[in-house]
């Protein structure tokens, strides 16, 4: 049954990609891209990657689609006909594709337990991590503990992305134009948003702290919390959202998350271990791992929340600016 679902979903995914190629209406392209992300998240779920599906659904389908829509509002939504012919790209793509297909024949068959990927460190993670780290969710153990240094690097990349976006766009605080913006005419949306936004934030907290036992963790929780504020900003307008969490505060928050993460590493060095060696954080190594993972996941969540929301603010204020002009 799982194979059949996999077959159908992958076929839908391929068709969606094919349709995107031929569409000239960029709004439709972005809509189909949202579907594409949803479908790929479903496939990840079907291939047992629950945490990845969680991330793709919230980040890929949610944040990317919203950002692309905002960009389209600024740049316009029709693609013009290309002047150069599309034969050369087609040729390049076909040749590369044929070479890659030929290459796949040397790949180990799909899903076989004896494949090389499953031989080296993976069995150790699967067998030892529940005892060593003491968490049922192996993805969280590997992410936050075994590969904690890598995750610190990723968090820094996300942080530097917000620096890049802010230096390119900048968040404009508007003083005079406070009246406009927001979906003024949609009364029902206002009421519904006020009901569900607290629930969404509650859900984000659940994802943040339940990530050790089920799918979830800092990355997903940060994005979901940011999504709640994005919903608020979309419905009530950016100025009102700025009054709740301002862009300057978010910049501090983004930095604070990364610092929180790194300071756990420094503290474990101070306690006599290696960088990010959580065993030193408490007398019992397993308890130390617990403390370490909870703190660094919090750092990741804070950073991702602040970065995603700030990126949205930057794009949103650009869109409002071009709307006023």
């Amino acid at each position, binding site marked *: 049954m799982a194979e059949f679902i996999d077959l159908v979903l992958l076929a839908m995914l391929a068709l969606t990609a094919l349709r995107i190629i031929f569409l000239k209406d960029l709004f439709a392209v972005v809509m189909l891209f949202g579907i594409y992300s949803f479908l790929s998240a479903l496939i990840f779920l079907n291939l047992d990657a629950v945490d990845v599906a969680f991330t793709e659904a919230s980040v890929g389908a949610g944040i990317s689609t919203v950002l692309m829509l905002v960009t389209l509002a600024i740049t316009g939504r029709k693609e013009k006909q290309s002047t150069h012919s599309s034969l050369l790209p087609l040729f390049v793509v076909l040749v590369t594709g044929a070479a890659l297909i030929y290459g796949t024949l040397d790949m180990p068959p799909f899903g076989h337990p004896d494949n090389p990927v499953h031989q080296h460190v993976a069995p150790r993670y699967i067998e030892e991590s529940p005892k060593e780290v003491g968490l049922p969710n192996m993805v969280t153990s590997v992410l936050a503990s075994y590969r904690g240094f890598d995750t610190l690097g990723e968090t820094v990349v996300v942080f530097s992305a917000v620096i890049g976006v802010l230096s390119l766009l900048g968040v404009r605080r508007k003083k005079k134009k406070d009246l406009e913006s927001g*979906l003024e*005419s*949609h009364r*029902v*949306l206002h009421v*519904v948003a006020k*009901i*569900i936004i607290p*629930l969404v934030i509650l859900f984000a907290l659940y994802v943040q702290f339940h990530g050790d036992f089920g799918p979830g963790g800092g990355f997903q929780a940060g994005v979901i919390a940011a999504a709640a504020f994005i919903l608020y900003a979309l419905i009530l307008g950016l100025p009102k959202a700025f009054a709740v969490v301002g862009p300057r505060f978010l910049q501090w928050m983004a930095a604070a998350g990364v610092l929180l993460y790194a300071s756990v590493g420094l503290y474990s060095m101070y306690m006599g271990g290696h960088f990010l060696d959580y065993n030193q954080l408490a007398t019992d190594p397993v308890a130390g791992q617990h403390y370490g993972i909870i703190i660094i996941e919090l750092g990741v969540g804070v950073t991702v929340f602040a970065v995603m929301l700030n990126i949205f603010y930057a794009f949103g204020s650009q869109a409002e600016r071009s709307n006023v002009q």
Partner: protein
Amino acid sequence: MDFLDIVSSILLLAGVFFGFSGAVGLFRFPDFFTRIHAASVTDSIAAILIIGALLLQTSFDLNTAKLVFILLFLMVTSPTASHALAKSARHGGLLTLAETRPQDKQGSAK
């Protein structure tokens, strides 16, 4: 198959039937406002029936709470989204079938 299984099977099949009829309605109805009507109404009833069926399969734990949460969430957001979309379409200048064919009886009465 015990009693709960039978009930939940019936609910599942009914939910799937409504979902299917909504999808057909998405193609068969003549204008946008009738199509959104077909889609949103069946969306809600399919969600109620299918999640209700799954609720009977749980043993009153965290999953039950999550399913109830999903159901409530869909109950609130799905009709809202449909309403807002229809309203936006109306404001955007989309006309109903009767309005686009003014020679019809309904159209001329308006």
